[in-house]
């Protein structure tokens, strides 16, 4: 397959499904897609936000640099919820459609990357990023593999931050092996990101040891679509048939994980988004004067941030305010420690944890428009625990429900990404 064939195919798919915000025609290298919150030198990078729409980064993110060094080039920048703020990839100015059913969403926030990999016959992988499930959710909804590494195994240099203590760059791919090979290229320490301290990931050989899989009883007690549950039960049978032992386990802090996730994520997001003030880059307004200095910032931010970004900035600001910080933000960080303790205990009993990736199949745009914010946030209930704890996770297609793909979610202990990939490959 040639670069021009990849570019031609991407153009056609983009017309039909809106996968890309920016589409390039690179003359060299194997063109691959990057989520639009990853900085690419000389190529527009908006993070799905109007406030950054005109931004052209003067540098490459470390993951882009590493892929370019291995002969890849930038095909384009994929659609995403504004700054990653969403579960369905609808909170943005370019909304991708699910290739299995264009009336349905791709899932968020890495919706463009996952949809493109699902629809393309030529692309093997694309770069995505997760804060609370933004790789797994769209991978599940679009029927592709989504691999999110342990926090700190891939450099975040050049990533437009949502929440620094939660953000992880990862991969969506056709197969577990493709995801694994891509992760090997992008992972490893980087002195431009001091939180990137994990070792380089090595594409592992086939699994040779006996594996025990744990299924948290509290997670299966959540509201899960019965057809999704059926597909998951079939997947568990398949794991058993492959020689793995299945065990019920407990993650007692489950009821607090969703709230803890949103509090930490929004607190960090509200500080990260403080830098968008219409002066140094991004959208601006005429410099009319007479007021306070910050009145200009407030106007620019009020005009260009989308509704969900504003909601999250307000919430994130609130949970950090004097008088509320201990109740929300500090307590949420304590819950994060509780959750990590629960996982560490579980991983003494089992090697891998399994659950459905999402409690539902990809919803229609009409269904999404009727959800309240808290109903939308609740859809992340099965993906946030792994993300809050920073453990690696993998969503693999496991059959269908009502004709739409379902994802099997596998999770491993910190820095056991290689084992996770081995088990994923064994599942097939």
């Amino acid at each position, binding site marked *: 397959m040639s670069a021009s064939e990849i570019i031609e195919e991407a153009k056609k798919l983009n017309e039909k499904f809106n996968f890309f915000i920016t589409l390039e025609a690179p003359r060299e290298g194997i063109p691959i897609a990057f989520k639009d919150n990853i900085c690419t030198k000389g190529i527009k990078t908006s993070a799905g936000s109007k406030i950054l729409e005109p931004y052209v980064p*003067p540098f490459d993110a470390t993951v882009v640099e590493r892929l370019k060094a291995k002969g890849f080039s930038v095909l384009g920048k994929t659609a995403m919820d504004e700054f990653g703020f969403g579960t369905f990839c609808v909170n943005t100015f370019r909304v991708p459609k699910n290739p299995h059913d264009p009336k349905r969403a791709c899932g968020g926030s890495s919706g463009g990357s996952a949809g493109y990999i699902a629809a393309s016959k030529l692309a093997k992988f694309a770069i995505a990023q997760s804060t609370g499930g933004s790789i797994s959710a769209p991978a599940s909804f679009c029927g592709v593999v989504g691999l999110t590494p342990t926090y700190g195994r891939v450099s975040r240099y050049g990533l437009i931050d949502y929440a620094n203590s939660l953000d992880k760059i990862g991969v969506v791919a056709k197969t577990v092996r493709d995801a694994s090979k891509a992760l090997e290229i992008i992972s490893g320490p980087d002195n431009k990101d001091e939180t990137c301290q994990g070792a380089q990931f090595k594409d592992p050989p086939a699994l040779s040891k006996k594996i025990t899989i744990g299924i948290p009883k509290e997670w299966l007690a959540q509201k899960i679509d019965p057809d999704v549950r059926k597909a998951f039960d079939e997947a568990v049978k398949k794991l058993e048939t492959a020689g793995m032992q299945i065990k019920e386990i407990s993650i007692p802090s489950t009821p607090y994980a969703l*709230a803890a996730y949103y*509090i930490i994520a929004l607190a960090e997001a509200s500080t990260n988004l403080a830098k968008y003030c219409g002066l140094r880059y991004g959208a601006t307004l005429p410099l009319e*004067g007479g007021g306070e200095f910050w009145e200009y910032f407030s106007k620019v*931010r009020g*005009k260009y941030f989308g509704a969900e970004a*504003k*909601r999250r900035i307000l919430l994130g600001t609130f949970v950090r305010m004097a008088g509320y910080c201990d109740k929300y933000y500090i307590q949420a960080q304590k819950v994060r420690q509780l959750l*990590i303790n629960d996982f560490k205990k579980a991983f003494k009993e089992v090697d891998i944890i399994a659950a459905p990736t999402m409690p539902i199949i990809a919803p229609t745009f009409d269904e999404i428009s009727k959800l309240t914010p808290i109903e939308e946030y609740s859809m992340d209930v099965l993906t946030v625990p792994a993300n809050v704890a920073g453990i690696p996770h993998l969503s693999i297609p496991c059959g269908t429900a009502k004709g739409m793909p379902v994802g099997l979610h596998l999770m491993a202990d910190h820095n056991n990404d290689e084992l996770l990939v081995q088990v994923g490959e064994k599942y097939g």
Partner: protein
Amino acid sequence: MDEPIDKLARIARLELTKEERDKFAKDLDGILKAFDIIAKAPTKGIKPATHAVPLKQMGRKDVVAESMSRDEALKNTEHKEDGFVKGPPTK
């Protein structure tokens, strides 16, 4: 006297329309009520985790390296003068 939502919007540097202000006030109320569940978590004696994995103090050698030129750094704004970013005039 400001309502809490007005104070919050001012601190967050967000100019909101009347419709947005009313909608967000209602949304925040519902969302914060849902967040209140974390008060029930058994966190006595648990230290807050700022990160999911333990991090070492990192440093790099103090050597001069190439950095972005001023022109490049200013390329993304129209509000500039004499090599500086230009802010709004104030009273």
